[in-house]
């Protein structure tokens, strides 16, 4: 039931976002769309604009008084919107609005990350990751004050700037790429704004910003603490491109303000890019002219060898496996497809602990950015990006493997439930799958998916079921982002094993750690949008 409240306005939405009143902000957002008939797209723009000044940090490394450093998380508000906008078309109708409401729910919780990690501002990081209320409790021990509302206004670490214009497009693109790599936020942002004004520049600008994001990637996360970006530069660049295309580039100033300065934020990690550039120069001298697709499908043996390298090998095994595929004439997208399906075996067969999904699925999302960049742009460096993605995936596997396995997080094998799943009528499998996904019962969920995949060629409804169930979980933009990546890659993948993407996606969504056990956000959405099959 919707209670009578004061009028929903954009000003009110802005105040609630900046005041970290996420429940109220979400309700206002829903009311603006349903009661005030404001277009969803316009409200997404307003929500992005309200958050934009408050998502920058001075650095993603914080120097501590002890002389050590700690990592500072990347803004996730914009990643939620990118995933939500992508999933909106996949789910369709009022169901497609759910991921947007989840994105909205998260935005007020994701501001001012620098202050959150030092327990001076409320939000998701302060409340959950840092457990600030234990360190600095308020007067009421039953209230977590880091859940909001804010007691201070959020800080602005990077003011808005004017566009930089003048000079050739070629020169400005080169200056922007250099400014991002060197950490000159103002120059990078101003140049981007200036270039984005002219629709004729936008395709090249998109290519350049994706390139800058993709090449900034750690060589390893093993024992590195916060000195990594787990693909966030690439993920932000992709978010910018997709959301600007959705909102319209002329309506994307605040979006650009949200994303571009952070691409130039420290640390800058170009060691892996240098290594891959070197090995390609030495071993693949014609790499700039390798085609995107070849007409030679991979053999099962080739996919097995790549799987072995990604899951059980070291970095040079991965380099060797990828190099071998390119040398035998495979196309860039072909090898990217193979990397994505082979990596699924890690999700499907190996991962057990709910916390252990985080880094590997970042690598999967990074690889999705690489594939999307290759599909939509022509750039002579795209071969190298496939190596980067494969190395990132392998590194996350090895990083997890540096920790002894916890027998208490062991999963029952999915095959134990296969006979049960096969005994259920096909038309009952998807409703049951939704139930088991919501119950976070990975073995049964995966058995149902295995059974469905083998008994029918239908895939759309299966993906819809997994995605819609996944979007019930709140406080986590990774859910939407990974959903968007998995669905996009499934649609494009040309290997014989493309169904493994669905198997990996289902396992992830049935097992990945949840940031809240309740579905409050879903209930707000259901109250206002009354979805069918709720």
């Amino acid at each position, binding site marked *: 039931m919707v209670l009578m409240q004061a009028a929903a306005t954009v000003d009110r939405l802005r105040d609630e976002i900046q005041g970290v009143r996420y429940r109220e902000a979400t309700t206002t957002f829903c009311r603006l769309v349903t009661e005030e008939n404001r277009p969803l797209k316009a409200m997404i723009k307003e929500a992005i604009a309200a958050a934009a000044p408050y998502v920058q940090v001075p650095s993603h490394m914080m120097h501590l008084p002890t002389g050590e450093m700690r990592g500072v998380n990347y803004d996730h508000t914009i990643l939620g919107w990118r995933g939500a906008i992508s999933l909106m078309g996949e789910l369709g109708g009022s169901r497609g609005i759910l991921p947007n409401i989840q994105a909205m729910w998260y935005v007020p919780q994701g501001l001012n990350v620098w202050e959150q990690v030092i327990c001076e501002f409320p939000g998701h990081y302060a409340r959950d990751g840092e457990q600030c209320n234990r360190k600095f409790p308020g007067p009421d021990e039953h209230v977590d004050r880091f859940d909001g509302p804010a007691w201070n206004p959020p800080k602005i670490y990077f003011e808005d700037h004017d566009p930089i214009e003048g000079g050739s497009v070629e020169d400005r693109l080169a200056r922007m790429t250099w400014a991002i790599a060197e950490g000159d936020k103002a120059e990078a942002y101003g140049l981007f704004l200036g270039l984005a004004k002219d629709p004729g520049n936008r395709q090249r600008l998109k290519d350049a910003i994706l390139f800058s994001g993709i090449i900034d990637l750690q060589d390893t996360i093993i024992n590195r603490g916060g000195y990594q970006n787990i693909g966030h530069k690439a993920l932000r660049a992709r978010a910018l491109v997709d959301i600007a295309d959705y909102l319209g580039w002329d309506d994307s100033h605040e979006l650009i303000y949200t994303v571009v300065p952070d691409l130039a934020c420290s640390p800058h990690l170009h060691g892996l890019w240098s290594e891959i550039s070197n090995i390609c120069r030495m071993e693949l001298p014609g790499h700039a002219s390798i085609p995107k697709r070849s007409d030679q499908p991979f053999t099962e043996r080739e996919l097995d060898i790549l799987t072995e390298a990604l899951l059980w090998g070291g970095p040079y095994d991965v380099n060797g496996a990828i190099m071998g595929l390119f040398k035998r004439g495979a196309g860039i997208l072909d090898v990217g497809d193979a990397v994505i399906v082979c990596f699924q075996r890690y999700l499907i067969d190996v991962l057990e602990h709910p916390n252990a999904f985080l880094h590997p699925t970042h690598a999967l999302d990074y690889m999705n950015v690489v594939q999307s960049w290759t599909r939509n742009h022509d750039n002579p460096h795209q071969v190298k990006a496939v190596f980067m993605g494969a190395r990132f995936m392998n590194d996350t596997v090895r990083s997890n493997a540096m920790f*002894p*396995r916890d*027998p208490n997080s062991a999963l029952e094998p999915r095959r134990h439930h296969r006979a049960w799943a096969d005994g259920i009528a096909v038309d009952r499998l998807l409703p049951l799958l939704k139930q088991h996904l919501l119950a976070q019962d990975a073995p049964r969920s995966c058995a149902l998916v295995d059974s469905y995949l083998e008994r029918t060629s239908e895939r759309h409804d299966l993906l819809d079921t997994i995605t819609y169930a996944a979007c019930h979980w709140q406080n986590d933009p990774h859910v939407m982002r990974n959903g968007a990546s998995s669905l996009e890659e499934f649609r494009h993948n040309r290997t014989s094993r493309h169904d493994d993407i669905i198997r990996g996606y289902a396992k992830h969504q049935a097992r990945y750690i949840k940031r809240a056990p309740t579905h409050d956000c879903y209930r707000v959405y259901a109250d206002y949008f009354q979805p069918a099959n709720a």
Partner: protein
Amino acid sequence: MSNDTANLGELWRVRNAAAVTLGLTEDHMRQAVRAASVEQLVGLIETFSPACSTGTEWTRTFEPLVERLWAWRDDATMAALAEVFRARGMPWMAVTNALSAEHGARTRAELRQPAWARLPAFTLG
């Protein structure tokens, strides 16, 4: 005998040689583990910390080691080991759980030794 059959026979001889070598190694390991003090075993287990491990290949052998500890050491020793790592808190939780009596009971129940086998069916790792 065809070439293929000869090749299979040759491969089986190589495999058997590897099994004999592994069996002897396991036997030496069994003697060493049985003779080790709790402190020495703690020292070995500490090498599986991400900060001390020589790499993933080493850490991935943690579970095979735990199987052997449960097979070759008594409950009192295992409880003493568990207590050491439990006192170290969350970072060692996975190790503590692997040394718990419940996990030990499961592990011992799953180790089988058919009549024809010299050793229990340990994980190779």
